[in-house]
């Protein structure tokens, strides 16, 4: 099964579609989770997912707004979509009945 960060990355890449590459995925994860992602964590996870066949990456043409540097484009494979679905279903199953999932949660302060 996927790890939490792997799931976030696949979901962000799937949502970005044709615009999925390092910088946009990083921004998407930061915007939706409020969590800063290091380039190291991002790229090593992309490599791992690609090795598992869950992502496909390729280098794009160089663009002037990036100082003439190319992008590493990312696309989620069918296997990646399936793995993300399984992770999501597992999270939903395990969360059934949890207080925070039924909006009855009351936060207590120590």
């Amino acid at each position, binding site marked *: 099964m996927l790890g939490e960060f792997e799931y976030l990355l696949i979901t962000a890449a799937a949502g970005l579609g044709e615009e999925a590459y390092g910088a946009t995925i990083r921004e998407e994860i930061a915007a939706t989770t409020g969590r800063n992602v*290091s*380039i*190291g964590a991002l790229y*090593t996870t992309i490599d791992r997912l690609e090795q598992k066949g869950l992502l496909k990456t390729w280098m794009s043409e160089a663009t002037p707004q*990036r100082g003439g*540097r*190319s*992008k590493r484009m990312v696309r989620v494979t069918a296997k990646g979509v399936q793995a993300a679905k399984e992770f999501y279903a597992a999270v939903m199953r395990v969360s059934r009945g949890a207080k925070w999932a039924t909006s009855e949660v009351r936060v207590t302060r120590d």
Partner: protein
Amino acid sequence: MTNIAWPMAEFAARSLEPTERDAILGDLIEVGETGWSALQNVLGLIILRQAQLLRTLRPWVAGLGVGLPSCYLLMGVSASVACTYERLFKPQVVRSPWWPTANEGILLLLCHFFLLLAWSWTAGYLCASLSRRTLWVTAALGFAPWFIDNFHLAPLPKSCVLLFVIPLVLGVLHGLQGTRISPLLALFLAIAMTGVMIFCWTNGALWNFNWALLVPAWYLVSVALRTAEQMGPEGSRLPA
């Protein structure tokens, strides 16, 4: 301060693969990271990549299997060359009883010197070919004996055991550049080294373990033959 950090980040990124370097520096420019943040990100990625590489067998084979034994043996040969030179050309020098030299003459000194150059170059080439991106591990393991062992060469300085460093570094540079050697040249070098070694050994001027230093030369022959087979007659960059 920020102005310094960007060139530092770009310099650090040179240790990454060219395509990855391009992608991450482009990403950092696009999102407008500050220089220090970019440097931190690049260093973080380098550390993660190194950690991944160190989990594989290759850098340890290069370091413990080639770097450490080769450098240790080459330190011994350097000491032998330096001491023989001193004995032959400065006989007035008071020698330590630990000197690794007996009655070698000029011919054996020249043979030793040739072997020192050839062994060092081939060992450097092999180390660079085996562990291009974790060369620091090989270097750290290879030079560890210099910091641990005293060598007992007085009045010669301890640094005389480092005579092999320049040809070794040249070999490393050629290995990093992927310099290809024609099979004929590699074979000639390996045969010459083996021949000179037999001559030295039969004259009692070499330690038995020094035979291990021939392994990189014959490895080079096998690589040159394989490369020539794959690339055809145009494959070599150095003349035969």
